[in-house]
Protein backbone atom coordinates (compact mmCIF):
# COMPACT_ATOMS: atom_id res chain seq x y z
CA UNK A 1 0.00 0.00 0.00
CA UNK A 2 1.52 3.35 -1.02
CA UNK A 3 1.58 5.92 1.66
CA UNK A 4 0.72 9.37 0.39
CA UNK A 5 0.06 12.41 2.39
CA UNK A 6 -3.10 13.46 0.64
CA UNK A 7 -6.41 13.28 2.37
CA UNK A 8 -7.82 10.88 -0.19
CA UNK A 9 -5.45 8.07 0.38
CA UNK A 10 -5.56 8.78 4.06
CA UNK A 11 -9.17 7.73 4.11
CA UNK A 12 -8.32 4.79 1.89
CA UNK A 13 -5.80 3.68 4.46
CA UNK A 14 -8.32 3.91 7.23
CA UNK A 15 -10.80 1.90 5.28
CA UNK A 16 -8.27 -0.83 4.61
CA UNK A 17 -7.33 -0.98 8.27
CA UNK A 18 -10.91 -1.10 9.27
CA UNK A 19 -11.61 -3.92 6.96
CA UNK A 20 -8.65 -5.86 8.18
CA UNK A 21 -9.49 -5.37 11.80
CA UNK A 22 -13.12 -5.96 11.15
CA UNK A 23 -12.09 -9.24 9.62
CA UNK A 24 -10.18 -9.94 12.77
CA UNK A 25 -13.10 -8.96 14.93
CA UNK A 26 -15.45 -10.95 12.83
CA UNK A 27 -13.40 -14.09 12.97
CA UNK A 28 -12.89 -13.69 16.68
CA UNK A 29 -16.52 -13.03 17.41
CA UNK A 30 -17.54 -15.89 15.17
CA UNK A 31 -15.34 -18.33 16.98
CA UNK A 32 -16.58 -17.15 20.35
CA UNK A 33 -20.23 -17.40 19.38
CA UNK A 34 -19.66 -20.80 17.84
CA UNK A 35 -18.28 -22.07 21.06
CA UNK A 36 -20.52 -20.39 23.53
CA UNK A 37 -23.67 -19.68 21.66
CA UNK A 38 -25.94 -17.24 23.40
CA UNK A 39 -24.05 -17.22 26.69
CA UNK A 40 -22.04 -14.44 25.11
CA UNK A 41 -23.61 -11.19 23.93
CA UNK A 42 -21.81 -8.82 21.59
CA UNK A 43 -22.09 -5.23 22.76
CA UNK A 44 -20.16 -3.45 20.06
CA UNK A 45 -17.65 -4.07 17.32
CA UNK A 46 -15.37 -1.21 16.28
CA UNK A 47 -12.02 -0.80 14.65
CA UNK A 48 -9.61 -2.81 16.78
CA UNK A 49 -12.03 -3.01 19.67
CA UNK A 50 -14.97 -5.20 20.49
CA UNK A 51 -16.87 -5.91 23.64
CA UNK A 52 -18.60 -9.04 24.75
CA UNK A 53 -20.85 -9.43 27.72
CA UNK A 54 -21.00 -12.69 29.61
CA UNK A 55 -22.85 -13.71 32.71
CA UNK A 56 -20.82 -14.03 35.88
CA UNK A 57 -20.95 -17.84 35.86
CA UNK A 58 -19.40 -18.11 32.40
CA UNK A 59 -16.67 -15.57 32.97
CA UNK A 60 -13.86 -17.93 33.85
CA UNK A 61 -14.72 -20.33 31.05
CA UNK A 62 -14.75 -17.60 28.44
CA UNK A 63 -11.49 -16.14 29.70
CA UNK A 64 -9.87 -19.55 29.60
CA UNK A 65 -11.08 -20.06 26.07
CA UNK A 66 -9.74 -16.67 24.99
CA UNK A 67 -6.36 -17.38 26.50
CA UNK A 68 -5.92 -20.89 25.19
CA UNK A 69 -7.36 -20.54 21.72
CA UNK A 70 -6.70 -16.96 20.73
CA UNK A 71 -3.58 -16.07 22.64
CA UNK A 72 -4.83 -13.22 24.81
CA UNK A 73 -2.31 -13.25 27.60
CA UNK A 74 -2.62 -10.11 29.66
CA UNK A 75 -5.08 -7.51 30.72
CA UNK A 76 -4.38 -3.95 29.71
CA UNK A 77 -6.83 -2.76 32.31
CA UNK A 78 -9.51 -4.14 34.57
CA UNK A 79 -12.08 -1.88 36.12
CA UNK A 80 -15.66 -1.53 37.09
CA UNK A 81 -18.48 0.89 36.34
CA UNK A 82 -21.34 1.52 38.65
CA UNK A 83 -24.84 1.53 37.11
CA UNK A 84 -27.24 2.30 39.94
CA UNK A 85 -30.07 2.71 37.45
CA UNK A 86 -29.85 -1.00 36.50
CA UNK A 87 -28.81 -1.91 40.05
CA UNK A 88 -25.73 -3.53 38.58
CA UNK A 89 -21.98 -3.07 38.54
CA UNK A 90 -20.26 -3.82 35.29
CA UNK A 91 -16.75 -5.26 35.44
CA UNK A 92 -14.61 -4.79 32.35
CA UNK A 93 -11.43 -6.64 31.47
CA UNK A 94 -9.54 -5.13 28.57
CA UNK A 95 -7.59 -8.06 27.21
CA UNK A 96 -4.62 -7.77 24.92
CA UNK A 97 -2.10 -10.09 23.42
CA UNK A 98 1.69 -9.85 23.42
CA UNK A 99 2.41 -13.28 22.04
CA UNK A 100 0.02 -13.37 19.09
CA UNK A 101 1.18 -10.67 16.67
CA UNK A 102 -2.10 -10.73 14.75
CA UNK A 103 -3.82 -9.41 17.80
CA UNK A 104 -1.19 -6.78 18.67
CA UNK A 105 -3.43 -3.76 18.01
CA UNK A 106 -6.54 -5.49 19.20
CA UNK A 107 -8.22 -5.13 22.55
CA UNK A 108 -11.12 -7.30 23.49
CA UNK A 109 -13.30 -6.07 26.31
CA UNK A 110 -14.62 -8.93 28.38
CA UNK A 111 -17.33 -7.69 30.66
CA UNK A 112 -19.79 -9.05 33.12
CA UNK A 113 -22.49 -7.53 35.26
CA UNK A 114 -22.95 -8.33 38.92
CA UNK A 115 -25.66 -7.41 41.31
CA UNK A 116 -25.06 -4.11 43.03
CA UNK A 117 -26.34 -5.08 46.45
CA UNK A 118 -24.03 -8.06 46.81
CA UNK A 119 -21.31 -7.72 44.21
CA UNK A 120 -19.25 -10.88 43.87
CA UNK A 121 -17.35 -12.15 40.92
CA UNK A 122 -14.86 -14.84 40.13
CA UNK A 123 -11.31 -13.60 40.00
CA UNK A 124 -9.39 -14.13 36.80
CA UNK A 125 -6.06 -14.09 38.58
CA UNK A 126 -5.31 -17.73 37.84
CA UNK A 127 -5.84 -17.17 34.13
CA UNK A 128 -4.36 -13.70 33.75
CA UNK A 129 -1.94 -12.97 36.62
CA UNK A 130 -1.70 -9.36 35.48
CA UNK A 131 -5.15 -8.50 36.87
CA UNK A 132 -4.06 -8.87 40.48
CA UNK A 133 -3.66 -5.22 41.37
CA UNK A 134 -6.48 -4.05 39.10
CA UNK A 135 -8.96 -6.33 40.80
CA UNK A 136 -7.74 -5.28 44.19
CA UNK A 137 -8.29 -1.67 43.26
CA UNK A 138 -11.77 -2.47 41.94
CA UNK A 139 -12.54 -4.14 45.24
CA UNK A 140 -11.66 -1.11 47.27
CA UNK A 141 -13.10 1.46 44.89
CA UNK A 142 -16.39 -0.25 44.09
CA UNK A 143 -16.82 -2.93 46.68
CA UNK A 144 -16.79 -5.91 44.31
CA UNK A 145 -15.53 -9.01 46.08
CA UNK A 146 -13.40 -11.24 43.87
CA UNK A 147 -13.64 -14.90 44.78
CA UNK A 148 -10.26 -16.53 44.53
CA UNK A 149 -8.21 -13.35 44.74
CA UNK A 150 -5.67 -13.75 47.55
CA UNK A 151 -5.96 -10.21 48.86
CA UNK A 152 -9.24 -8.34 48.76
CA UNK A 153 -7.84 -5.46 50.75
CA UNK A 154 -7.38 -1.78 50.79
CA UNK A 155 -4.67 -0.81 48.31
CA UNK A 156 -4.59 2.83 47.29
CA UNK A 157 -6.97 4.42 49.75
CA UNK A 158 -5.63 5.61 53.11
CA UNK A 159 -5.50 3.22 56.03
CA UNK A 160 -8.24 5.04 57.91
CA UNK A 161 -10.80 5.01 55.11
CA UNK A 162 -14.15 4.32 56.75
CA UNK A 163 -16.55 5.54 54.10
CA UNK A 164 -18.26 3.66 51.28
CA UNK A 165 -16.33 2.60 48.20
CA UNK A 166 -15.61 5.93 46.50
CA UNK A 167 -16.31 5.13 42.87
CA UNK A 168 -19.93 4.32 43.56
CA UNK A 169 -22.37 6.91 42.40
CA UNK A 170 -23.82 7.31 45.92
CA UNK A 171 -20.50 8.64 47.10
CA UNK A 172 -20.49 12.37 46.54
CA UNK A 173 -17.34 14.45 46.68
CA UNK A 174 -17.75 16.99 49.44
CA UNK A 175 -19.34 20.15 48.20
CA UNK A 176 -20.38 18.85 44.79
Amino acid at each position, binding site marked *: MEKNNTENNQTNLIEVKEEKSNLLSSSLINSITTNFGDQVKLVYKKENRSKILVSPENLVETALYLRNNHGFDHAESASGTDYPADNQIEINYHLGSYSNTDYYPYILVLSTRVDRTDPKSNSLINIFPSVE*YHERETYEMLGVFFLGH*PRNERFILPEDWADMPPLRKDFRIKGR
Partner: protein
Amino acid sequence: MSSLQEKIDEAKKLSLQITKETEDDRLMTLSVGPQHPGSGHFRFTIKVDGDYIVFVDPDPGYVHRGHEKMCEYRNHFQNIPHLERPVIHDSCNITYAYSLAVEDLVGITVPRRGQFIRALASELSRLSYTLYWLAIYGIFLGHSTMFMWPAGDRELLIDLLERLSGARVTNAFNIPGGVRNDIPYNFKEKCLAQVNYFETRLKEYEDIFYNNPLLRQRTEGVGILTKEDAIKLGVTGSVLRASGVPFDVRKVEPYDVYDEIEFKVQYMKTCDSFARAYVPVLDMRESCHIIRQLLDKMPDSGDVREKLQFNIKSSPGETYKRVESGRGALGYHVVSDGTPRPYRVKASVGSFRNLLALPFLLTGSKLGDMPAIYWSLNYWPVEADR
Protein backbone atom coordinates in the same frame (compact mmCIF):
# COMPACT_ATOMS: atom_id res chain seq x y z
CA MET B 1 22.84 -21.54 53.50
CA SER B 2 20.65 -24.27 52.06
CA SER B 3 17.75 -23.45 54.33
CA LEU B 4 18.08 -19.84 53.28
CA GLN B 5 18.01 -20.92 49.63
CA GLU B 6 14.90 -22.94 50.31
CA LYS B 7 13.31 -19.94 51.89
CA ILE B 8 14.15 -17.80 48.91
CA ASP B 9 12.77 -20.34 46.45
CA GLU B 10 9.57 -20.69 48.37
CA ALA B 11 9.13 -16.96 48.57
CA LYS B 12 9.69 -16.57 44.86
CA LYS B 13 7.08 -19.20 44.04
CA LEU B 14 4.46 -17.48 46.13
CA SER B 15 5.39 -14.03 45.00
CA LEU B 16 2.15 -13.50 43.14
CA GLN B 17 0.14 -14.36 46.21
CA ILE B 18 0.59 -13.19 49.70
CA THR B 19 3.63 -14.54 51.45
CA LYS B 20 2.93 -15.63 55.00
CA GLU B 21 4.76 -13.50 57.48
CA THR B 22 7.25 -15.71 59.20
CA GLU B 23 7.79 -15.53 62.91
CA ASP B 24 11.51 -15.85 62.43
CA ASP B 25 13.59 -13.52 64.57
CA ARG B 26 16.23 -13.32 61.92
CA LEU B 27 14.03 -11.23 59.71
CA MET B 28 14.11 -7.48 60.02
CA THR B 29 11.21 -5.45 58.72
CA LEU B 30 12.21 -2.30 56.93
CA SER B 31 9.78 0.25 55.72
CA VAL B 32 11.16 1.81 52.57
CA GLY B 33 8.65 4.52 53.04
CA PRO B 34 7.53 7.73 51.45
CA GLN B 35 10.09 9.63 53.51
CA HIS B 36 13.05 7.82 52.08
CA PRO B 37 15.63 9.06 49.63
CA GLY B 38 15.37 5.79 47.81
CA SER B 39 11.74 5.39 47.03
CA GLY B 40 9.95 8.41 45.65
CA HIS B 41 6.39 8.95 46.95
CA PHE B 42 5.83 5.28 47.46
CA ARG B 43 6.01 2.91 50.35
CA PHE B 44 6.91 -0.72 50.31
CA THR B 45 7.64 -2.95 53.26
CA ILE B 46 10.45 -5.42 52.98
CA LYS B 47 11.67 -8.12 55.28
CA VAL B 48 15.37 -8.78 55.07
CA ASP B 49 17.30 -11.78 56.22
CA GLY B 50 20.83 -10.40 56.44
CA ASP B 51 21.33 -8.99 53.00
CA TYR B 52 18.58 -10.95 51.22
CA ILE B 53 15.05 -9.69 50.78
CA VAL B 54 12.48 -12.37 51.53
CA PHE B 55 9.20 -10.49 51.46
CA VAL B 56 8.03 -7.41 49.62
CA ASP B 57 4.69 -5.72 50.03
CA PRO B 58 4.07 -2.61 47.97
CA ASP B 59 1.74 -0.06 49.46
CA PRO B 60 0.89 2.70 46.99
CA GLY B 61 -1.60 5.43 47.66
CA TYR B 62 0.48 8.13 49.23
CA VAL B 63 -0.44 10.58 46.48
CA HIS B 64 -3.88 9.27 45.66
CA ARG B 65 -6.02 12.23 44.69
CA GLY B 66 -9.03 10.54 43.15
CA HIS B 67 -8.68 11.72 39.57
CA GLU B 68 -11.08 9.14 38.26
CA LYS B 69 -13.83 10.25 40.60
CA MET B 70 -13.14 13.91 39.89
CA CYS B 71 -13.58 13.30 36.18
CA GLU B 72 -17.23 12.53 36.72
CA TYR B 73 -17.87 16.03 38.05
CA ARG B 74 -16.23 18.00 35.29
CA ASN B 75 -16.81 18.26 31.60
CA HIS B 76 -14.27 17.16 29.05
CA PHE B 77 -12.36 20.40 28.87
CA GLN B 78 -12.22 20.80 32.62
CA ASN B 79 -10.82 17.32 32.95
CA ILE B 80 -7.61 18.13 31.11
CA PRO B 81 -5.77 20.19 33.77
CA HIS B 82 -6.30 17.74 36.57
CA LEU B 83 -5.73 14.63 34.50
CA GLU B 84 -2.23 15.72 33.68
CA ARG B 85 -1.22 15.94 37.34
CA PRO B 86 -0.34 12.26 37.76
CA VAL B 87 2.75 12.76 35.63
CA ILE B 88 3.58 16.40 35.42
CA HIS B 89 6.63 15.93 33.24
CA ASP B 90 4.90 13.80 30.66
CA SER B 91 1.68 15.76 30.61
CA CYS B 92 1.38 15.93 26.86
CA ASN B 93 1.02 12.16 26.73
CA ILE B 94 -1.38 11.56 29.52
CA THR B 95 -3.82 14.10 28.14
CA TYR B 96 -3.27 12.85 24.61
CA ALA B 97 -5.04 9.57 25.31
CA TYR B 98 -7.95 11.31 26.97
CA SER B 99 -8.33 13.70 24.04
CA LEU B 100 -8.29 10.80 21.61
CA ALA B 101 -10.98 9.03 23.60
CA VAL B 102 -13.20 12.10 23.74
CA GLU B 103 -12.76 12.79 20.05
CA ASP B 104 -13.76 9.21 19.37
CA LEU B 105 -16.93 9.61 21.41
CA VAL B 106 -17.82 12.98 19.92
CA GLY B 107 -16.92 11.81 16.44
CA ILE B 108 -14.57 14.47 15.07
CA THR B 109 -11.11 14.40 13.54
CA VAL B 110 -8.42 16.84 14.38
CA PRO B 111 -6.97 18.90 11.51
CA ARG B 112 -3.67 17.65 10.18
CA ARG B 113 -1.51 20.45 11.48
CA GLY B 114 -2.97 19.90 14.92
CA GLN B 115 -2.14 16.23 14.72
CA PHE B 116 1.48 16.98 13.89
CA ILE B 117 1.82 19.46 16.72
CA ARG B 118 0.24 17.00 19.12
CA ALA B 119 2.72 14.32 18.14
CA LEU B 120 5.58 16.80 18.46
CA ALA B 121 4.57 17.81 21.97
CA SER B 122 4.16 14.15 22.86
CA GLU B 123 7.69 13.34 21.78
CA LEU B 124 9.15 16.32 23.62
CA SER B 125 7.31 15.32 26.77
CA ARG B 126 8.52 11.79 26.45
CA LEU B 127 12.11 12.99 26.19
CA SER B 128 11.69 15.25 29.20
CA TYR B 129 10.18 12.48 31.31
CA THR B 130 12.77 9.89 30.34
CA LEU B 131 15.59 12.26 31.20
CA TYR B 132 14.13 12.91 34.61
CA TRP B 133 13.71 9.20 35.19
CA LEU B 134 17.32 8.63 34.15
CA ALA B 135 18.49 11.33 36.52
CA ILE B 136 16.76 9.70 39.46
CA TYR B 137 18.15 6.33 38.44
CA GLY B 138 21.60 7.81 38.77
CA ILE B 139 20.87 9.10 42.24
CA PHE B 140 19.54 5.73 43.31
CA LEU B 141 22.79 4.15 42.26
CA GLY B 142 24.78 6.80 44.08
CA HIS B 143 26.04 8.51 40.95
CA SER B 144 25.47 12.20 41.39
CA THR B 145 26.83 13.16 37.98
CA MET B 146 24.26 10.85 36.41
CA PHE B 147 21.69 12.99 38.14
CA MET B 148 23.06 16.36 37.13
CA TRP B 149 23.71 15.80 33.46
CA PRO B 150 20.26 14.54 32.43
CA ALA B 151 18.58 17.10 34.66
CA GLY B 152 20.63 19.80 33.00
CA ASP B 153 20.01 18.59 29.47
CA ARG B 154 16.35 18.35 30.21
CA GLU B 155 16.31 22.12 30.33
CA LEU B 156 16.74 22.16 26.57
CA LEU B 157 13.51 20.29 26.10
CA ILE B 158 11.63 22.06 28.85
CA ASP B 159 12.53 25.28 27.12
CA LEU B 160 10.93 24.03 23.91
CA LEU B 161 7.80 22.96 25.74
CA GLU B 162 7.64 26.33 27.38
CA ARG B 163 7.76 28.01 24.00
CA LEU B 164 4.95 25.79 22.83
CA SER B 165 2.58 25.90 25.72
CA GLY B 166 3.75 28.48 28.20
CA ALA B 167 4.50 26.08 31.02
CA ARG B 168 7.54 23.97 31.77
CA VAL B 169 5.65 20.99 33.09
CA THR B 170 1.88 20.37 33.29
CA ASN B 171 1.47 21.94 29.91
CA ALA B 172 -2.29 21.41 29.43
CA PHE B 173 -1.50 21.60 25.76
CA ASN B 174 -3.72 18.82 24.38
CA ILE B 175 -7.43 19.40 24.53
CA PRO B 176 -10.25 17.46 22.92
CA GLY B 177 -10.23 18.78 19.37
CA GLY B 178 -6.53 19.42 18.95
CA VAL B 179 -4.02 21.65 20.66
CA ARG B 180 -4.59 24.91 22.41
CA ASN B 181 -2.49 27.14 20.22
CA ASP B 182 -0.22 27.13 17.22
CA ILE B 183 3.55 26.90 17.40
CA PRO B 184 5.57 30.14 17.65
CA TYR B 185 7.06 31.58 14.52
CA ASN B 186 10.68 30.45 14.92
CA PHE B 187 9.98 27.24 16.70
CA LYS B 188 11.19 24.89 13.98
CA GLU B 189 14.74 26.23 13.89
CA LYS B 190 15.03 26.34 17.66
CA CYS B 191 13.66 22.86 18.04
CA LEU B 192 16.00 21.39 15.45
CA ALA B 193 19.01 23.09 16.97
CA GLN B 194 18.27 21.92 20.47
CA VAL B 195 17.27 18.40 19.53
CA ASN B 196 20.41 17.98 17.42
CA TYR B 197 22.59 19.14 20.29
CA PHE B 198 20.76 16.83 22.65
CA GLU B 199 21.50 13.89 20.44
CA THR B 200 25.24 14.50 20.74
CA ARG B 201 24.80 14.51 24.49
CA LEU B 202 23.18 11.07 24.31
CA LYS B 203 26.41 9.74 22.88
CA GLU B 204 28.27 11.14 25.90
CA TYR B 205 25.82 9.46 28.24
CA GLU B 206 26.60 6.15 26.69
CA ASP B 207 30.33 6.71 27.05
CA ILE B 208 30.38 7.90 30.60
CA PHE B 209 27.42 6.24 32.23
CA TYR B 210 26.65 3.05 30.39
CA ASN B 211 30.25 2.02 29.78
CA ASN B 212 31.17 2.54 33.43
CA PRO B 213 32.26 -0.86 34.76
CA LEU B 214 30.79 -0.20 38.19
CA LEU B 215 27.38 0.63 36.80
CA ARG B 216 27.47 -2.43 34.61
CA GLN B 217 28.45 -4.59 37.54
CA ARG B 218 25.56 -3.31 39.54
CA THR B 219 22.90 -3.65 36.89
CA GLU B 220 23.91 -6.47 34.58
CA GLY B 221 22.40 -9.80 35.45
CA VAL B 222 20.36 -8.21 38.20
CA GLY B 223 16.60 -8.51 38.32
CA ILE B 224 16.07 -10.75 35.33
CA LEU B 225 12.51 -10.66 33.99
CA THR B 226 12.20 -13.33 31.33
CA LYS B 227 10.01 -12.85 28.31
CA GLU B 228 7.38 -15.30 29.51
CA ASP B 229 7.20 -13.68 32.91
CA ALA B 230 7.00 -10.24 31.39
CA ILE B 231 4.08 -11.26 29.21
CA LYS B 232 2.37 -13.06 32.04
CA LEU B 233 2.71 -10.14 34.41
CA GLY B 234 1.44 -7.78 31.76
CA VAL B 235 4.17 -5.17 32.04
CA THR B 236 4.43 -2.50 29.43
CA GLY B 237 6.71 0.09 27.94
CA SER B 238 10.47 -0.03 28.24
CA VAL B 239 10.29 -2.89 30.76
CA LEU B 240 8.53 -5.05 28.19
CA ARG B 241 10.88 -4.05 25.41
CA ALA B 242 13.91 -4.82 27.54
CA SER B 243 12.59 -8.36 27.91
CA GLY B 244 12.47 -8.97 24.20
CA VAL B 245 8.90 -8.13 23.15
CA PRO B 246 8.92 -5.45 20.43
CA PHE B 247 5.64 -3.84 21.40
CA ASP B 248 5.21 -0.10 20.96
CA VAL B 249 1.73 1.36 20.71
CA ARG B 250 2.91 3.89 18.14
CA LYS B 251 3.83 1.05 15.82
CA VAL B 252 1.13 -1.53 16.45
CA GLU B 253 -1.82 0.82 16.66
CA PRO B 254 -0.69 4.09 15.09
CA TYR B 255 -2.73 7.04 16.22
CA ASP B 256 -2.74 10.45 14.53
CA VAL B 257 0.19 10.75 12.15
CA TYR B 258 2.42 7.98 13.46
CA ASP B 259 1.73 5.77 10.50
CA GLU B 260 3.56 8.27 8.28
CA ILE B 261 6.69 8.43 10.44
CA GLU B 262 9.46 5.92 10.03
CA PHE B 263 11.05 4.70 13.19
CA LYS B 264 12.18 1.43 14.69
CA VAL B 265 10.96 -0.20 17.84
CA GLN B 266 14.01 -0.53 20.07
CA TYR B 267 14.16 -3.63 22.18
CA MET B 268 16.80 -5.73 23.89
CA LYS B 269 16.84 -9.38 24.74
CA THR B 270 18.94 -9.45 27.90
CA CYS B 271 16.01 -8.89 30.29
CA ASP B 272 18.12 -7.50 33.15
CA SER B 273 18.22 -4.15 34.88
CA PHE B 274 20.86 -2.89 32.52
CA ALA B 275 18.60 -3.50 29.54
CA ARG B 276 15.73 -1.74 31.32
CA ALA B 277 18.04 1.20 31.93
CA TYR B 278 19.38 1.21 28.38
CA VAL B 279 16.21 0.83 26.33
CA PRO B 280 14.98 4.32 27.30
CA VAL B 281 18.18 5.82 25.91
CA LEU B 282 17.59 4.01 22.63
CA ASP B 283 13.99 5.23 22.72
CA MET B 284 15.21 8.78 23.20
CA ARG B 285 17.31 8.53 20.11
CA GLU B 286 14.32 7.30 18.14
CA SER B 287 12.30 10.19 19.51
CA CYS B 288 14.87 12.60 18.13
CA HIS B 289 14.47 11.03 14.69
CA ILE B 290 10.71 11.26 15.01
CA ILE B 291 10.85 14.92 15.97
CA ARG B 292 12.94 15.74 12.93
CA GLN B 293 10.53 13.94 10.62
CA LEU B 294 7.55 15.62 12.22
CA LEU B 295 9.03 19.05 11.75
CA ASP B 296 9.82 18.16 8.19
CA LYS B 297 6.41 16.85 7.23
CA MET B 298 4.26 19.32 9.09
CA PRO B 299 1.87 21.22 6.81
CA ASP B 300 2.78 24.88 6.70
CA SER B 301 -0.60 26.20 7.56
CA GLY B 302 -3.93 25.08 8.73
CA ASP B 303 -6.07 24.87 11.78
CA VAL B 304 -4.61 23.33 14.85
CA ARG B 305 -7.87 22.72 16.56
CA GLU B 306 -11.39 21.67 15.83
CA LYS B 307 -13.32 24.12 17.90
CA LEU B 308 -15.75 22.36 20.17
CA GLN B 309 -18.37 23.77 22.41
CA PHE B 310 -17.31 24.06 25.99
CA ASN B 311 -20.08 21.76 27.19
CA ILE B 312 -19.82 19.36 24.31
CA LYS B 313 -22.12 16.40 24.65
CA SER B 314 -20.44 13.14 23.79
CA SER B 315 -22.62 10.45 22.27
CA PRO B 316 -23.52 7.60 24.60
CA GLY B 317 -21.13 4.68 24.45
CA GLU B 318 -17.69 3.76 25.59
CA THR B 319 -14.24 3.66 24.12
CA TYR B 320 -10.72 2.64 25.02
CA LYS B 321 -7.88 4.61 23.50
CA ARG B 322 -4.20 4.24 24.27
CA VAL B 323 -0.96 6.06 23.50
CA GLU B 324 2.66 5.27 24.19
CA SER B 325 3.85 7.37 27.07
CA GLY B 326 7.22 7.42 28.82
CA ARG B 327 6.21 4.48 30.97
CA GLY B 328 4.34 2.39 28.46
CA ALA B 329 0.86 2.00 27.07
CA LEU B 330 -1.40 4.52 28.71
CA GLY B 331 -5.04 3.80 28.04
CA TYR B 332 -8.25 5.58 28.89
CA HIS B 333 -11.54 3.76 29.16
CA VAL B 334 -14.19 6.47 28.89
CA VAL B 335 -17.87 5.69 29.33
CA SER B 336 -20.28 8.39 28.32
CA ASP B 337 -24.01 8.69 28.81
CA GLY B 338 -24.79 11.59 26.52
CA THR B 339 -24.16 14.38 29.01
CA PRO B 340 -21.25 16.80 28.91
CA ARG B 341 -19.62 14.98 31.79
CA PRO B 342 -18.16 11.50 31.34
CA TYR B 343 -19.92 8.75 33.22
CA ARG B 344 -16.75 6.86 34.09
CA VAL B 345 -13.11 7.42 33.28
CA LYS B 346 -10.58 4.73 34.00
CA ALA B 347 -6.92 5.47 33.32
CA SER B 348 -4.79 2.40 32.88
CA VAL B 349 -1.32 3.71 33.46
CA GLY B 350 1.97 2.00 32.75
CA SER B 351 3.28 2.42 36.29
CA PHE B 352 0.39 0.55 37.86
CA ARG B 353 0.89 -2.34 35.50
CA ASN B 354 4.64 -2.45 36.02
CA LEU B 355 4.18 -2.44 39.79
CA LEU B 356 3.29 -6.12 39.64
CA ALA B 357 6.85 -6.93 38.64
CA LEU B 358 8.25 -5.31 41.78
CA PRO B 359 7.54 -8.00 44.39
CA PHE B 360 8.26 -10.62 41.77
CA LEU B 361 11.77 -9.31 41.11
CA LEU B 362 12.76 -8.09 44.53
CA THR B 363 12.01 -11.27 46.47
CA GLY B 364 15.21 -13.20 46.73
CA SER B 365 17.47 -10.39 45.62
CA LYS B 366 20.04 -8.56 47.70
CA LEU B 367 19.24 -5.39 49.56
CA GLY B 368 21.93 -3.61 47.59
CA ASP B 369 20.10 -4.39 44.38
CA MET B 370 16.91 -2.85 45.57
CA PRO B 371 17.36 0.62 44.05
CA ALA B 372 18.73 -0.77 40.81
CA ILE B 373 15.73 -3.03 40.31
CA TYR B 374 13.00 -0.85 41.72
CA TRP B 375 13.61 2.23 39.67
CA SER B 376 14.49 0.34 36.51
CA LEU B 377 10.85 -0.77 36.37
CA ASN B 378 10.07 2.75 35.15
CA TYR B 379 7.69 3.23 38.03
CA TRP B 380 6.34 6.71 38.62
CA PRO B 381 4.65 6.62 42.06
CA VAL B 382 2.33 9.57 41.52
CA GLU B 383 0.96 8.12 38.33
CA ALA B 384 0.25 4.71 39.83
CA ASP B 385 -1.78 6.31 42.57
CA ARG B 386 -3.67 8.67 40.27
